[in-house]
């Protein structure tokens, strides 16, 4: 396992702390209704908590076209890496659901890293970032991979020199953040602004919640019931609310946890027994695009994922107390997978930016 050692300059640290202090995260209203109180009919009032709210933007980094344009250029510019061959988009590639299609990420010199690249989709709604929650906001996270020797391995003074000496970037920064200099914070804010445009909120499931009876098949509705039912799939206990995550941490009994030198996950951040081998619940939105699954990429298909939960995990030494084993027939497992496939928003072609030269 490789954990990134990230060193921030004192000036950046101070600016970031001030910025985080200003952030107002508009939390998603979590689905508080119990299974017995839900009516599984298209458009029913009891289902409306599953619709995503408006994208929240933090104070100090409100959305503007100029900020998104700047962030998009930075996100796809490989010159932001030490070898000039990696961008944010290398591991968070729109072709692979804003992940990379690999079991675990490849970093500097293509070294295999310990964890899967999480998707950027709907991270705008997350109240905590990264598999182990070590970053709070998208702004807080954005510089991390560039500064990490194991990932993009960028020399930050060299990066700032490059951006300050490139006319196109100077203009773009000035337009996006006119009263601020080009620094680590404005780079992070630009990238975060772009990431907040990567949203999935118009799936067949959303259409069904809004009242379109034909948006889901009978099998998908059955799968949804099984997904929510605490005595059956019990998936909703963690994949809760409209973004299908509780932003929480759970050890789900992956085989990797039973091995020597297992990744301890959240325990590094919160040294509590319960957190050993616990990782953040990922969103299920656009789930078919982001295989392989789990933080270690150990499941190739959604069928494998559901089968893992059906048998109650493999390494059960520190299982999340919220993980229950329930017998699910093959038919029921197939229905849950069919339901998860209804969480995909129809893909649209993606236009790459023109980067300044």
């Amino acid at each position, binding site marked *: 396992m490789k954990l990134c050692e990230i060193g921030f300059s004192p000036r950046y640290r101070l600016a970031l702390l001030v910025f985080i202090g200003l952030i107002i995260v508009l939390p998603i209203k*979590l689905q508080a209704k119990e299974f017995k109180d839900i009516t599984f009919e298209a458009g029913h009032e009891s289902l409306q908590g599953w619709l995503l709210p408006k994208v929240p933007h933090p104070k100090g980094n409100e959305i503007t076209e100029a900020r998104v344009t700047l962030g998009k250029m930075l996100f796809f510019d490989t010159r932001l890496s030490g070898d000039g061959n990696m961008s944010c988009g290398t591991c968070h590639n729109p072709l692979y659901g804003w992940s990379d299609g690999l079991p675990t990420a490849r970093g500097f010199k293509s070294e295999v890293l310990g964890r899967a690249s999480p998707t950027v989709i709907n991270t705008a709604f997350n109240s905590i970032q990264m598999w182990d929650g070590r970053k709070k906001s998208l702004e807080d996270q954005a510089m991390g991979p560039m500064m990490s020797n194991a990932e993009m391995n960028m020399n930050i003074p060299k990066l700032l020199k490059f951006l300050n000496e490139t006319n196109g970037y100077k203009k773009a920064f000035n337009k996006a953040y006119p009263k601020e200099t080009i620094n680590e914070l404005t780079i992070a804010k630009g990238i975060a602004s772009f990431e907040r445009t990567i949203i999935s909120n118009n799936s067949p499931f959303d259409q069904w919640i809004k009242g379109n009876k034909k948006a889901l098949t009978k099998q998908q509705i059955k799968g949804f019931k099984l997904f929510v039912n605490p005595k059956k799939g019990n998936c909703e206990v963690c994949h809760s609310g409209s973004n299908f995550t509780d932003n929480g941490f759970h050890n789900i009994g992956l085989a990797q946890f039973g091995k020597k030198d297992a990744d301890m996950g959240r325990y590094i951040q919160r040294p509590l027994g319960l957190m050993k081998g616990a990782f953040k619940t990922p969103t299920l939105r656009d789930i078919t695009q982001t295989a392989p699954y789990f933080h270690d990429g150990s499941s190739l298909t959604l069928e494998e994922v559901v089968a893992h939960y059906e048998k109650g995990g493999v390494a059960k030494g520190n299982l999340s107390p*919220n993980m229950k084993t329930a017998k699910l027939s093959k038919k029921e497992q197939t229905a849950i997978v069919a339901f998860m496939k209804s969480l995909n928003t129809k893909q649209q072609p993606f236009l790459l930016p023109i980067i300044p030269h």
Partner: protein
Amino acid sequence: MKCFTTKMITASLMTLCFSATIFAQTIEVGQKDKKFTKSKIEINVGDTVKFINEDTFFHNVFSLSDIKFFDLGSFPKGEFKEVTFDKAGTIEVECAIHPEMIMTIDVK
């Protein structure tokens, strides 16, 4: 005379301890809809906070504070765990499973 003074001091201290025990309070804080029912409470040294899980799934309660370090493990709906606070200061309390659940306890 010295013996009398010692007895008086001992008696006073015992009375003080007894009074503190009598006046120490137990304050209830629920865990409902993945939130603590109170985001901030003020208590006195010696008071106890009773954390009650009102959700249908497991919660945890912990603090990594130097003033009061504790980890109550995980417990299901209807169960509760108690912590007595014996030092003054401000303590941040969280649920490890659901990090959006944060509250502050001011111990006076």
